[in-house]
């Protein structure tokens, strides 16, 4: 045998050994099949609740193997998930964040759910609010269950606000004066005292979609409803971003770029975030409140972040995964999950249901922020090809985060770059 042929044979043998490991058995032949769900939370309380629901499901479904919840860090969640899919290691079920919803829904990666959920006993599919399911639908079919519909609110450190000689946001709400102008003045006063003012959580001068919680007050949008026209150069956006730029660099009401401050450690007056972060205030050593977003020039508004739960179409256990999804999100379990994730079910969006599972929050806080918020909210920006769009917008917005920035020129620059990407 020639040496080259020997080498080729050796390489081929090694390859066959590796590929043979894949096996060719069908699920039925292999006995109980495990299910794996990727999620972004690693919070112990959340995981405990998930595991309890899974254990209950397994009692009536001995044909299902272990059900595991695979936590992936939030920052790299979608990248890790798609890499797993590319590597042939896709989960059976996956949380999908709102910013990648259009990509997942339109690509056909997720299995349709409407038929199975409609058939599930006592599921009450019609109870899901259309506002919550809108992002997860295409051509009348539902591709993910709107697992969490979480409005943005403002957590306030009342102690710091009072120490700076300011009225609390609660007092301003009662006086009908809870506006962005007053909120910025209040945060600027706290910042003068040495602590930080307002933090837009998770923004860090990079994740700009979180700014929707501010520019919504001006009626501004990243792009039009149909996603085809850039909204960054609209007069509303210019006004909102000019206001924000001044609040950061002139009033110093928000900590500038390159600084890290933790509201939950008591170092800042306020933070804009979603209510699921309330758990971080358990045992807080300062007086706090949760209030809705202040009114902008266009009046009251609300913004929500969403996460959907879908079954991967390609999973060999897709049918079983959908069955588990139907159990995991049925009315009884949805009520339990409401402790952390505001439910999409109209019947459960009541102060009573939410108060039962959110002991840290007062009924009026839940009503103002969650129930009223969901009713009028717009979802954070999302678009097909969001990751690339998001990265382009981030790069173009970078020059804005300097004291001498030309706001209009920067915003025009954003549209110059993204309009060709989104235009029909």
């Amino acid at each position, binding site marked *: 045998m020639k040496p080259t042929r020997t080498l080729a044979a*050796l390489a081929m043998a090694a390859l066959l050994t590796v590929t043979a490991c894949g096996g060719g058995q069908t699920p039925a032949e292999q006995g109980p099949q495990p299910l794996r769900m990727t999620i972004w939370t690693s919070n112990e309380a959340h995981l405990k609740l998930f595991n309890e629901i899974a254990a209950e499901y397994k009692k009536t479904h001995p044909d299902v193997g272990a059900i595991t919840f695979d936590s992936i860090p939030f920052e790299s969640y979608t990248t890790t998930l*798609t890499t797993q899919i590319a590597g042939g290691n896709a989960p059976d079920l996956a949380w999908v964040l709102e910013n990648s919803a259009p990509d997942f829904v339109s690509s056909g990666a997720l299995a349709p759910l409407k038929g199975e959920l409609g058939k599930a006993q006592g599921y009450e599919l019609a109870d899901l609010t259309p506002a919550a399911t809108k992002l997860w639908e295409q051509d009348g079919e539902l591709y993910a269950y709107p697992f969490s519909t979480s409005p943005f609110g403002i957590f306030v450190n009342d102690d710091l606000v009072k120490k700076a000689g300011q009225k609390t946001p609660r007092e301003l709400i009662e006086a009908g004066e809870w506006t962005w102008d007053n909120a910025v003045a209040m945060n600027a006063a706290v910042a003068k005292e040495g602590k930080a003012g307002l933090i837009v959580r998770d923004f860090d001068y990079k994740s700009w979609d979180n700014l929707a919680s501010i520019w919504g007050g001006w009626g501004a949008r990243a792009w039009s409803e149909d996603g085809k026209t850039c909204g960054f150069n609209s007069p509303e956006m210019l006004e909102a971003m000019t206001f924000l730029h001044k609040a950061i660099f002139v009033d110093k009401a928000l900590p500038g770029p*390159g600084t890290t401050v933790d509201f939950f450690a008591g170092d800042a007056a306020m933070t804009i975030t979603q209510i699921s972060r309330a758990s971080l205030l358990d045992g807080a050593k300062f007086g706090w409140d949760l209030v809705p977003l202040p009114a902008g020039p266009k009046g009251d508004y609300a913004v929500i972040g969403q996460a959907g739960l879908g079954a991967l179409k390609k999973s060999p256990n897709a049918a079983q995964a959908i069955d588990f999804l139907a159990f995991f999100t049925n009315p009884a379990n949805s009520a339990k999950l409401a402790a952390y994730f505001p439910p999409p079910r109209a019947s459960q969006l009541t102060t009573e249901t939410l108060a039962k599972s959110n002991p840290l929050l007062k009924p009026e806080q839940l009503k103002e922020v969650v129930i009223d918020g969901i009713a009028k909210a717009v979802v954070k920006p999302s678009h097909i090809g969001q990751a690339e769009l998001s990265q382009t917008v981030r790069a173009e917005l970078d020059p804005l985060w300097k004291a001498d920035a030309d706001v209009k020129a920067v915003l025009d620059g954003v549209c110059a770059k993204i309009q060709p990407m989104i235009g029909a």
Partner: protein
Amino acid sequence: MTLTRTRETTATHRAVVSPYWTFRRRDNLVGYLFIAPQLVGSVLFVLLPLGLVLWYSLHEWNVLAGTFQFTGGDNYTKLLNDPKLGEVLGGTAMFSVGLVVLNLSLALVLAILLNQRLRGTTFFRTLFFSPVVVSLVAWTIVWRFLLQADGGVNGLLGAVGVDGPNWLRGETTAMVSVVVVQVLKNVGLNMVLFLAALQGVPSQLHEAARVDGAGVWTRFVRITVPLISPTILLTSIITVVGSLQVFAQIAVLTQGGPGLSTTVLIYYLYQQAFQFHHFGYGATLSALLFAIVAALTFAQWRMRRKWVFHES
């Protein structure tokens, strides 16, 4: 009887004339068996992925939709027309040149300083080498905190009355920061290699030159540099190749920003493939990176005859 003898003779003759398992063949087989594990590893984990990358670069692979379509040279046409690529390659060149120049010169200076028989030399050698063994991500995260607007670096500058910049938010300062953080992490490795080379320079040559009236600089340029030139070649190849593969530092410190200022080629291909789901185009960028690394290494190898001692 005669027939039998004839057959035996023929068989013996054949055995003598052409035995298949000659000593040479057996020797070769043993040799191949010895290198087989390494060879199989290289084929499976180096050559096969390399071939697959080139194969993927001829396709459009939509991971979410699960489609994999042959598109021929489309990705290469896209590469030529990519409006961001020029800026990315410019940034990559700036990063690599900055890194290589700073790393090699600092490593050489440190090696010369630590090549003295003085008290405390061992301590300083250990000190400068220790970042090499520290976890890369931990090292970078600590530097991210130090380089913040209100971080340790500006705190130190403030103590001496200097108002430091927002290091990771300015286009130039972000690039400088990434280069310096990377140099400080790895300069110890090149320093050790230079130190070993310097200790191999015979002291008699220096003494003879000194007797002939050669100054410190002349002795360094005429004696030390030629004798350590093989090490300079080695370290420059390692550092150039390494500089094109710096990923974690960029991901942790700047995520390619501000703007595209620190988006080097490897980070750009990661974004294209894993964040934007353009796996085919990502593979095309990988092919470009491979070509650049191969060309630079080849050029350095060819140029060695001009300046590396013992190589002419």
